[in-house]
């Protein structure tokens, strides 16, 4: 099994709901807390597992805004695990989830240096490294109804831009979507083989808004009514 996320860049609206939900769930989860520094101060900062950035692709006016959520990619070739001297960082053989054992980590930061995707953040308060757990404390929780056994970021997304599943199974819903939509990996040239996949924006023709032709009968009636009714 190779569990991971599929992120649809076509529909992500950049609302940060997944990041906030992730913070909320995980600050009392297995690697809790996600410490905040100066939460109400002048320089608010803290540990997050999921961050959303915003880019402009192409040159104005032929450009598009892309909202870009990023969390741990649960890489197949995870150098963050290889470089860890204490064995705190590990990759589970059964489902490929990469975790940090908070009882073993010595806070040397080396794993965060080895991660290309900025998925690891040191908690200054506990002195240990923290990262996305793929909500391991939800997806295997037998007490939750089956439809809730999903990462909280996936459940909360109002645009359904996030999917969770087994990317090893070629017939799983996520694998099908990745094939159909030509999903891709980030920075493949570094060779980490990230599990998470990104779906590119669909190619849609722009809807014309100028030179729409003569207004029809309905439009003329409407504009007449608009003239009569004083606003």
């Amino acid at each position, binding site marked *: 099994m190779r569990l991971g996320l599929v992120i649809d860049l076509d529909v992500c609206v950049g609302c*940060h709901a997944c*990041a906030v939900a992730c913070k909320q769930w995980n600050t009392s989860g297995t690697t809790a807390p996600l410490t905040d520094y100066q939460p109400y101060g002048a*320089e*608010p*900062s803290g*540990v*997050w597992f999921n*961050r*959303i*950035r*915003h*880019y*402009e*692709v*192409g*040159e104005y006016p032929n450009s598009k*805004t*892309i909202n*870009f959520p*990023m969390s741990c990619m649960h890489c197949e070739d995870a*150098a963050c*695990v*290889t*470089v*860890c*001297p*204490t*064995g*705190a960082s590990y990759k589970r053989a059964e489902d490929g989830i990469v975790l940090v054992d908070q*009882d*073993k*980590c*010595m*806070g*040397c*930061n*080396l794993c*965060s*240096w*080895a*991660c*290309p*995707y*900025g998925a690891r*953040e*040191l908690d*200054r308060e*506990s*002195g*240990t490294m923290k990262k996305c757990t793929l909500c391991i404390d939800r997806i295997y929780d037998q007490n939750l109804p089956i439809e809730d056994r999903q990462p909280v970021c996936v459940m909360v997304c109002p645009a359904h831009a996030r999917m969770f599943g087994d990317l090893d199974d070629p017939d799983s819903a996520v694998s099908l979507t990745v094939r159909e939509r030509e999903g*891709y*990996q*980030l*920075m*493949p*040239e*570094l*060779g980490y083989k990230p599990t998470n996949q*990104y779906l*590119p924006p669909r190619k849609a023709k722009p809807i014309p808004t100028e030179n729409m032709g003569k207004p029809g009968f309905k439009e003329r009636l409407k504009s007449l009514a608009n003239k009569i009714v004083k606003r």
Partner: protein
Amino acid sequence: MHPAFSVIFFTVSSGAGFGLFALLYLADVLKLGGGLSGEQVAATGAMALCFIIAGLLSSVAHLANPKNAWRAFSRFRTSWLSREGVFSVAFFPFAFGYLVLSWFAAPSLEVARLAVGGAATLLAWITIFSTGMIYASLKTIRQWNTPLVPANYLAMGHASGALMLLAVAAWAGLALLPFASIAASFLILGALLKAIYYFWIAEPGASASIQTATGFTRAQVKLLDTGHTHGTFLTEEFGFQVARRYALALKVFVFVAGFILPLVMLGSVAGQPSLLLGSLITGLALLGLVAERWLFFAEARHVVNLYHGSQRC
């Protein structure tokens, strides 16, 4: 990368200590310049150990959770940081054995003395190499992911160690020519490697870009918003950037203080043995080395900066 002083001090100090120890052993075996006495070998070796221990303590101080530092010996098979820890600790019993046997200078134990000294020297070399490999093994930082890095760590450790050994030889009243030649060779080697390195990292080559980082390879990509109000761990750790003019000035300082002045002053030490002058050159070179190490971190650009708007790293 954020240039953390504890790590800069660690690499410079322990590098110099290991370099000094290795060269001390070689000078002792070959009886360079007439040979140091047993006591002198022991005292110099103890000095090398002090530099190494100070460095290692500083590296532990860099940890956010030092109470788990002992666990760092457990991933010897995969992690260069773990290997460095294991080798540096394995070095100590051999080094102590060598110093104690040198101090008591029992002729019947001479073979044992040279054997443990040889083992310690080998471990010293492997440890410096491992330190370099911690950085060189990171694919995420182009400026570090090159064989020049461990080569540079070895050359710089030996150059500073050789200068210290020269000061010791001046104090012990030995013939200084061999010591000065060794120091000069390592200084020239270090300067050459550093020059190649600076030349090498100036040109990005085929490296990751904001396009490959985001996957939008057919168009220009520009950051609109990082999504956070203040800094994050990522900006603190990886966001550091040094101005080009400032970096250039520091590079000049590295070459002048670290290589050129020590080389020029070497000649006068060889002609007129003086512990003071020897120590002065060593101090100057170490200062140059600290600047070199600072730049090593400050100029390294982690690929995560691509997600924060850098076009190339």
